[in-house]
């Protein structure tokens, strides 16, 4: 699988993006920013006391924030890029497909982490529990949205490949 990925990375050329898809990118960018911001506001509650006893949980909080920030910045870049011109390089398309997998994996991590954090009985326990639940659901929506974008890009790619094969 990895060898195939490297081969895909080696492919070059530009892909046109539909107007509808540009809107999806914009929506994904806005919701990613919102997620990063929401998690930042709850961090003081998560890291207050108790969590110091579980260094890996503290590490997770920081990593989770870093990941959300990077995802938001990446999607913002894409949204802005597509407002300038509706084309994407092949390498970028590949990175977007990977980002959709990343988002799905983050939901999985969140699902399990939610149980650990709830079990720690942090301060303002009920607020934390409610936040984690809504955060997980929002991450799931984000993953679904990125999955939709990835599916559209894959479909366009398959169409272009079929057309190229015909021309050959």
């Amino acid at each position, binding site marked *: 699988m990895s*060898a195939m990925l490297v081969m895909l990375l080696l492919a070059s050329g530009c892909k046109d993006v539909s107007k509808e898809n540009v809107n999806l990118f914009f929506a994904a960018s806005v919701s990613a920013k919102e997620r990063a911001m929401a998690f930042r506001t709850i961090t003081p509650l998560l890291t207050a006391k108790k969590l110091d006893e579980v260094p890996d949980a503290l590490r997770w909080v920081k990593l989770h924030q870093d990941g959300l920030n990077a995802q938001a910045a990446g999607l913002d870049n894409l949204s802005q890029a597509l407002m300038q011109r509706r*084309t994407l390089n092949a390498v970028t398309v590949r990175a977007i497909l990977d980002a959709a997998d990343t988002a799905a994996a983050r939901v999985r991590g969140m699902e399990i982490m939610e149980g650990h954090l709830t079990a720690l009985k942090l301060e303002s326990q009920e607020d934390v529990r409610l936040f984690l639940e809504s955060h997980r659901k929002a991450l799931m929506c984000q993953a679904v949205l990125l999955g939709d974008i990835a599916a559209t890009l894959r479909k366009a790619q398959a169409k272009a490949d079929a057309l190229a094969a015909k021309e050959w």
Partner: protein
Amino acid sequence: MRDAMEEHMVQLPLLDANLLAENMKALGPDILAALQAAAEAFVNDNRQDALAVGDENAKAIMLNVTYVTLPIAPLSADASVKQIADHEAVLVKRDQLLQLISQAQKENNEHQRRLYAAAGKAASSVVIGILGMTLKALLGG
């Protein structure tokens, strides 16, 4: 080569960049060449569209491409906090790659837009020039 890749996959450290660089050396020439080719393809792909990707960015992209070539390890329902944090660390690297590549794409598209706008301006001034000459001729100037 595929076998070699799969054999090395699980041995990659997840967090430390220096450790990763050392391990990359140990990956063997085939995989390193493939990774380097992937990074170079990215640079060339963008250079074609007149985008300059700096050496540092190219290095960062190459390093992060390594994480993307690794499959994301599935988490079991009873995963420990440490395992989830390690898992999250890989996801961060993957999103940072998206950030680097999309930044280049943004600069690329902005540059293209400027080129098109300049070409459009030049074309319209030619059109206006021709219109002017035609008018002049019609008016007998």
